């Protein structure tokens, strides 16, 4: 059932995001070709400025639409009128919530890939195939490869941290929306109030954790490890951060589940 739900979400996201991706990639290539073939004096004038602006607008549109859809798909599909259908499916509430979170992670990943592809296409358009060869050559350089292998642990943990951070942010927003839906009026306002309250509690919690880390000597030990082996120090700090983020995912996930399963208040 989880796979089917993710597939359905993919379709719902895709009908809006795919045309945006195609527009972005096509425009990125056009921008690159313009840089290559249009005389420099024209590109430095108004047409160049407009192309640059449009490029920026499309990139922003992808980022904003990914964020907007991540929230509205949850809000409309589960707590709006469509919620009557979704909560009538023969599955449990937890599966519905998990499908939303995984879909957001997938589409955030797609948007990131498309952003990088757009930059690569601009470079390809501007510099031709030669530019790509040079880039590949750079990454094949023995010193670069050796350096990358040394920090591979940090890179993998960074990716995991970004995934856990995105999941924690989105589940926190879902919990805020679920709290807002406990009220019959001003639901969006109460959702925002709940999110502000989460931020305040989060800040207090971070301060308490820092104080705990300082007085128990955890920071001192970490700093000694960091001085002795920087990479190992970063890895330990990242692992700790991932743990904290996963704890947040669990905490806000359970709160969202309780509110949607036990105190559902559909329109």
């Amino acid at each position, binding site marked *: 059932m989880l796979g089917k739900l993710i597939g359905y979400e993919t*379709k719902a996201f895709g009908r809006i995001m795919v045309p945006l991706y195609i527009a972005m990639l096509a425009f990125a290539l056009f921008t690159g070709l313009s840089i290559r073939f249009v005389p420099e004096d024209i590109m430095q004038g108004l047409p160049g400025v407009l192309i640059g602006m449009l490029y920026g607008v499309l990139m922003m549109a992808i980022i904003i639409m990914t964020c907007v859809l991540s929230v509205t798909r949850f809000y409309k599909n589960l707590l709006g009128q469509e919620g*009557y259908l979704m*909560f*009538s499916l023969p*599955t*449990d509430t937890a599966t519905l919530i998990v499908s939303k979170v995984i879909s957001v992670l997938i589409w955030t990943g797609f948007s990131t890939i498309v952003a990088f592809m757009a930059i690569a296409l601009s470079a390809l358009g501007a510099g031709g195939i030669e530019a790509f060869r040079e880039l590949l050559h750079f990454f094949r350089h023995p010193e670069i490869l050796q350096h990358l292998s040394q920090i591979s642990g940090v890179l993998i943990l960074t990716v995991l941290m970004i995934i856990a951070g995105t999941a924690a942010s989105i589940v926190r927003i879902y919990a805020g929306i679920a709290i807002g839906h406990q009220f019959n009026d001003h639901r969006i306002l109460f959702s925002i109030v709940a999110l502000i309250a989460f931020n305040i509690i989060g800040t207090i919690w971070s301060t308490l954790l820092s104080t705990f880390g300082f007085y128990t000597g955890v920071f001192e030990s970490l700093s000694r490890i960091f001085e002795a082996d920087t990479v190992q120090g970063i890895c330990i700090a990242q692992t700790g951060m991932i743990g904290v983020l996963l704890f947040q995912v669990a905490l806000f996930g359970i709160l969202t589940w309780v509110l949607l399963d*036990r105190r559902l208040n559909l329109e």
Partner: protein
Amino acid sequence: MSMLECTALSKNYGSVEALRSIDLTLESGRIVGLVGPNGSGKTTLIKLAQHLLTPTSGVITIDGMIPGPQTKAIVSYLPDRDFLPQWMNLDELMTFYHDFFPDFNPAKAADMLDALGVSGRQPLGKMSKGTREKVQLIFTMSREAKVYLLDEPIAGVDPATRDYILRTILSNYSENALVLISTHLITDVEPILDEVVFLQKGTIELHENADALRERTGKSIDGYFREVYRCWGN
């Protein structure tokens, strides 16, 4: 066989009592009218049966099970609003129902849509309100469910559509299924009802066989309803 059972079932919204300790048993193979004025607790009872709400106290079971994923697999629910994704067209909706409801019968849905002349790749949001309501009913009745919960299926539609909806309910529910129709338009549904449950201020005022009620009172269900509710209103 008991298909829907409520024991001392209560639901409060804050200080408002929507349902007050009701006891009710509905058998399979019956078409039951759940009638009562606005705010009498009809929709609350249906939402509790579909686990869209949880009881404040008491128990509700469907086929002996507490409402949850297992009961949703055997209950086909029609809410009193546009609940289908408006961006989907009929083909996408067919795929959706086929994917998520194992008891969905696509051939039955296709036949009904054909008979209605609804087709094409138009999204639901672009269809007229009447057509959307028919489509919602068709998809609800195209499941081979054990229980059909129909919340105000004929409210706000024209008389021709009402006839179509009632014919669709009659000709498409499985004979071993329980059909619970919530409505305040009793005249229209009266001909198809086997039983009637009168709700008033969250309590069951009457639960009786439709023919027995007509015979006992010498009135139609609608006539009796109007008379009794006028008294209760006073």
